């Protein structure tokens, strides 16, 4: 009896120990890759935000860490009129910046909203009813919408330049909103079709039996269920339209110029005036970084829909 208890019953065999070591190195490699890629993804953002607090010598010496390497200064933000000591005073630069910022915000939000409204309706119709327009059946109509995706913006750019000139829509926010709606509409329809397909038809059938009309059922029963999908489509559209540069650069000049166009025009003119460029770039990306962190769930949902059928 005593002999039995003294020998260790459970012990790691040589093979198991080797396995553990292998598992451990595997972990190290995996976390190494993860951390490396995190640095790759976040360093440019870190660099931009810290540079906006640097002075010229700090940039030239390659100081990286605030308070350790250098003392952060409001210089970059001052040149935008957004530093604590200038925020109360009049500033033409800030007025200009805020105007561009508002242009970007208004065009992005309105075009995303418009695209979500138009796209949800179309996607719902396509997922529930059978249509026939001449030779076009549902799959054809669906393809008609989605095929807009492969249309490169440059094909439409110059014709729109001429058309908008004739329609007096050049350099207006309305013109930009319409065009942006067009560019995100196929994506919205794609996401929403996926959403509506996953909602069982029995729900509407029950609603119809209870006396609602088709539109009543859509507005009161289906839309609330599809809301997460709509938010996902909206956020994704917002990201795309907020960042859009090509159309804005061609079709706007003074009134409706958006933030990316302003950033781009400053890049050329200011040369090595890094702090103000960094502040400008930082303020252009910060709204989306916040959206990305807060609403990450929806963005991923939006992009993942359609990937998995």
């Amino acid at each position, binding site marked *: 009896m005593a002999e039995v208890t003294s020998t260790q019953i459970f012990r790691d065999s040589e093979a198991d120990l080797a396995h553990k070591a292998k598992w451990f190195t595997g972990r190290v490699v*995996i*976390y190494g890759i993860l951390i490396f*890629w*995190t640095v790759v993804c*976040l360093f*440019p953002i870190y*660099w931009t935000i810290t540079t906006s607090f640097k002075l010229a010598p700090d940039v030239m010496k*390659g100081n*990286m860490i605030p308070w350790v390497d250098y003392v952060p200064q409001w210089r970059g933000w001052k040149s935008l009129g957004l530093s604590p000591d200038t925020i109360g005073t009049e500033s033409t630069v800030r007025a200009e910046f805020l105007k561009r910022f508002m242009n970007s915000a208004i065009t992005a939000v309105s075009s995303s909203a418009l695209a979500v409204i*138009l796209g949800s309706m179309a996607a719902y119709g396509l997922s*529930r*009813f*059978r249509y026939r327009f001449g030779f076009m059946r*549902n*799959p054809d*109509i669906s393809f*008609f919408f989605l095929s*807009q995706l*492969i*249309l*490169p*913006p*440059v*094909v*439409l*750019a*110059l*014709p729109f*330049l*001429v058309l908008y*000139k*004739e329609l*007096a829509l050049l350099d207006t926010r309305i013109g930009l909103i319409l065009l942006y*709606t*067009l560019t995100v*509409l196929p994506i919205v329809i794609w996401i929403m079709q996926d959403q509506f397909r996953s909602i069982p*038809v029995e729900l*509407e059938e029950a609603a119809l039996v209870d006396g609602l*009309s*088709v539109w009543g059922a859509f507005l009161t029963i289906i839309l609330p269920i599809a809301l997460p999908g709509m938010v996902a489509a909206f956020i994704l559209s917002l990201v795309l339209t*907020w*960042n859009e*540069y*090509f159309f804005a650069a061609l079709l706007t000049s003074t009134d409706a110029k958006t933030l*990316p166009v302003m*950033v781009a025009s400053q*890049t050329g003119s200011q040369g090595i005036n890094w702090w103000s*460029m*960094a502040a400008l770039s930082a303020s*252009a990306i910060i709204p*989306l*970084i916040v959206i*990305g*962190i807060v609403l*990450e769930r929806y*963005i*991923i949902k939006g*992009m*993942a829909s359609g*990937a998995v059928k």
Partner: protein
Amino acid sequence: MAEEGDLLHVVTDDEISPRRAALGRVLVWGSAGIVAISFLVVWIAKQGTIGLDAPNWRPVLYAYLFFGICLGVAQVVQRGEQGKRTLFILPAVLFVIAMVIFPLIFALGIAFSDWNLASPEGRQFNGWDNVRQMWGDPFYWNALKNMVYYTAAILVEYAIAFGLALILASEIRARKFFRVAFLMPLMLSPVAVSWMVGKSMLEIRFGPLARLARWLGWESPSFFGSPEVARFMIMAMDAWTFIPFMMIMLLAGLQAIPRELNEAAEVDGAGKWRSFWEVTFPLMLPVSITAILIRIIFKLKLADIIINVTAGGPGGATDSVTSFIFREYRDRSNVGYGTLLAIVYLVLIVIAITVFMKAVDRWMNPRY
């Protein structure tokens, strides 16, 4: 979808009286007539022969809007319940027709003309001159060739994205943090990226990446000096912004694979490597193809970074088609030639994508 009839089947007895149907027809044709009349009036006024003065074509736009509303109302008036269903897709259809089909037809018109927006002569029809000019334009062919390179880079992006998605799908701590961190580049505007990375981090004297390159032993780093390096830098920046996109799609695909399949493979004695190639990868093919296709579509629009970082240089080596046309317009403000180039590009894209999809289809569903 093979089934006939509506998915949501509703039986309605709409009694459409002949008068109601007639009213609907009047609405449609009447409003269409208003569009035609407004078009004619503005056109005549533009000729300037009569006293009318038309500053722009806005009236036609309003007439089109009015026509759209009338068409919608007429659907319900004419076809009752059935018409209400059409209302779901009608706005989007009318919108796309106005914003794509009409401009495309218009584009065909300008593509065959010499139209300098700055010159007072206006549009000059010049037949096949633009085509001939395109044929002899080495920069355009160069831009097309670059697009092939840029598109080929997607395979590398795909491999990286797949690797990251695999790691994110495995059992790791702080997955949410890494997911958010990896997503960040996608949120940034390409213009901001051009400055952040292209102009400041790659700045040859003070940029951190230039310092890193010097530290690694590259004596005098120059990122946009030689064509090959410059092209690679553009690819890298574009990849940086869009890898998260593919990664998220692939991650969603990976998470949809039932765990039992990999467990079964393990029980059958397959190692990690083998079960990846024989279970995971084949199951991921449909998602991969969707992700790659969408990525190709986005890649074909590549322009912002090029316009802002290199402006096509050195010597057009980094030009994409879009950035080339953009500069072509900026420099000469000739809409005709630019439009022709864009339309040729569109035709090439449609052919290439069709061939790609057919090939994929043939490959995925082999017919023996």
